[in-house]
């Protein structure tokens, strides 16, 4: 049985990620980022690192072992919102804090890759962020953009790292279920 760990930074939608995955028939558990990496590695097939009110890099000390999960977890990792920013930062990308987006935003796909397969070229995604990714890390491909934010989704297929700035777990994001399922299927 595939078990997906959802790293919980207290964001509003973290519990909703668990619910969506369970609705799809996967097993998901919320986990705290104080758990040591080896335990996380033993218990989970893949990880989702989601949102919270913290800013990167200022609040990095509050994220516990999450930076290590993002860099060293052997299986697939999906970063959502804060998790996406953390992933970009840890692999050497550049963040900015002056391009906020809230509510519904039109997102355009540049390269569908694995996680955006089956999604329309343009779709409405739900956002809630102040910080965003300005430049993707080396080795990552930009998968989608909006009129405000250039890196709405990114991937490094070789090391199984994926990031989305928007929230696929909320009902108002079109194709959100498709995106979560695409990732969850990688965990098998």
């Amino acid at each position, binding site marked *: 049985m595939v078990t997906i760990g959802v790293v919980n930074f207290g964001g509003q939608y973290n*519990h909703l990620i668990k619910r969506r995955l369970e609705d799809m028939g996967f097993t998901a558990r919320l986990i705290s980022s104080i758990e040591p990496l080896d335990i996380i590695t033993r218990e989970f097939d893949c990880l989702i690192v989601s949102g919270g009110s913290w800013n990167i890099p200022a609040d990095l000390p509050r994220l516990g072992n999450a930076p290590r999960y993002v860099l060293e977890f052997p299986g697939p990792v999906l970063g959502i919102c804060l998790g996406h920013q953390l992933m970009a930062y840890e692999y050497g990308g550049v963040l900015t804090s*002056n391009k*906020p987006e*809230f*509510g519904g935003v039109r997102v355009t796909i540049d390269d569908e890759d694995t996680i955006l397969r089956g999604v329309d070229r343009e779709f409405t995604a*739900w*956002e*809630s962020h102040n910080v965003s990714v300005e430049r993707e890390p080396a080795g990552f491909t930009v998968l989608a953009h909006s009129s405000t934010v250039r890196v709405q989704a990114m991937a490094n297929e070789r090391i199984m790292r994926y990031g989305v700035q928007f929230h696929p777990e909320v*009902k108002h994001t079109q194709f959100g279920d498709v995106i979560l399922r695409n990732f969850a299927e990688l965990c098998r």
Partner: protein
Amino acid sequence: MFIPEEFTKAVINEIRRLEIRCAIAAVSGGVDSTTSAVITRLAINDRLIPVLFDTGFMRINEPTEVTESLRGLLPIRLIDVKEEFYTAMMGLSDAEEKRVRFRSTFYSALSKLVKDNGCDWLVQGTIAPDWIETVGGIKTQHNVLAQIGIETDKVYGFKLLEPLKELYKDQVRALARFLGVPASIVNRQPFPGPGLSIRAVGLLTMEKLNVVKWSTKIVEEGLNNLGLSQWFAAAWEDERVYDEELNKRVKDLGRGLTVETFKVKGTGVKGDSREYGRIAVVSGELNKWSDAFNLYPRLTYGTDVTHVIYELGDGGAKGGKFFVTIRAVTTSDYMTADVPKLSRGILTKVARELAKNDSVSSIGFDVTPKPPATIEFE
């Protein structure tokens, strides 16, 4: 996957394993509290005493209508606590202060009831978004105690039973249908715990509360059967300040648009953080009606504005002192919410009705989704 039948069986078994002398269930007539009372009654029968508090902040005739519609399913005791709540809450202005005061008044009254009846448990309809928002510091939901470390048996003298606390609204509705809860309750739009006290935005007075009660009825009737998830009215003093910087942001969306901000503040949620910020109102002619729904990114990105209201006009109002806002959203789980693209015609019609109240100055429509706004204003 959520299966109501299995969930019901599991919950009944769990409740029967608890030592319960008797339990009070606080029912508001909403689907969450009603369903948790119904499912608990299946487990402990008459050892459950369902009560409904008439706080004075419910809608016109609501307490008796709810009690009536649940006859047969739940023998509800209707308890009048209006005086206690009015004394505790009138004169408060800050959103969180209102919510926290409502909660303490609510639980003091419940605590007394539990003692008077020799009970030891309280059943309530807390669901996932309630504790997620409270724990996350977005807003204090009146029914969240255990999750923020309040030990209810020490403070209030009862243990807390929350059979639905992991569920979302759509799951609760499926469960309610399975348990035979009447459709009028299953489909009832959610109503905040502190009731209309938080829709009388800012300073809470009897006069403002009455405007809200009256306006709520008009909006509920005027926007009925449109497939909305929630639709209601809120009111506050029509006191505004012109804002030059905000005006520049919307210039191209119409001719002679004016942006002002109200003196009262409203609650929003931006980047997972609570924001208690300004409510902006845009007046003047838009290039096209659909631009009303493009106003909020301009005014909420990178500012402290949490709600954007498009002013529909005074509708012939006679210069009262309260601005009334029509709020309508679509959502399935209330974690995010979109603004329905209602026609200007239908809104204007409702606005004209609202203008008939002498206390009303002008009417607007809230065009902000959640996030960056919350569904309610406080």
